[in-house]
């Protein structure tokens, strides 16, 4: 594998349903494996994507959006991987959980914070975009 990886984008769209979350995780592993991440970092990315997709699924359930989709969009650079998880699961009202167990939801948030270097939540008209960045060479 070349050390100079040209910036590249990979995109995957899945239904916002529990049985497809594993597909997004698998794609994330494959994409991260093309970069100079350690095995542990690849696992971190896989888990972070799984947690974010699970949150999207929970919000789609709460908002009764059976037709919702999740778009996993990644931008591969030589020193970092940017991952966008965009859903059409409807609005996430501040301070209002998905109805999932509060501890579970807190664990999910904690994991996402700990597993990636940057994470930003950007509300969208029809759902939510979460942008995560993981740098190559960092912990």
């Amino acid at each position, binding site marked *: 594998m070349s050390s100079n990886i040209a910036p590249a984008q990979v995109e995957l769209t899945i239904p916002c349903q*529990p049985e497809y979350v594993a597909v997004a995780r*698998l794609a994330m592993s494959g994409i991260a494996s093309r970069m100079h991440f350690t095995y542990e970092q690849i696992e971190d990315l896989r888990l972070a994507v799984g947690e974010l997709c699970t949150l999207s699924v929970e919000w789609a359930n709460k908002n009764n959006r059976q037709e919702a989709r999740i778009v996993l969009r990644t931008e591969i650079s030589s020193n970092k991987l940017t991952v966008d998880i965009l859903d059409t699961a409807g609005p996430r009202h501040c301070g209002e959980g998905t109805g999932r167990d509060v501890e579970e939801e807190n664990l999910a948030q904690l994991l996402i914070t700990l597993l990636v270097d940057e994470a930003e939540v950007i509300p969208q008209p029809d759902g939510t975009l979460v942008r995560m960045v993981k740098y190559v060479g960092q912990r």
Partner: protein
Amino acid sequence: MNFKIETQTLEDNLPVIRLGGEVDVYTAPQLKQAMIALLEKGVKRFIVDLTNVEYLDSTALGVLIGGLKRIREVGGNLLLICPSARIRRVFEITGLDKVFDMHNSEDEAKKAPEKE
């Protein structure tokens, strides 16, 4: 990747739920059902064997915490077998390795002292 779940009873009448594959938002409800079935039978001590688990997320952790709370309310305990460093790491980064009774093997779990 394929999820597997099986409940067995060890020779000393100790139930063990053996899991394999990926325990996530799609499969964790089956773990919840298996634990509820044991709790409804009045079981006060059981093992969840994570030896063959390849992936575990917050949904699975939430189900395990729920089971642990319920069994500790009746003075019982839930023991985990988790020899995999990859899976144990998820417990460690969330601090849950200090909450659960975690063991590296079935023999070690069976010998664990009963909690008050």
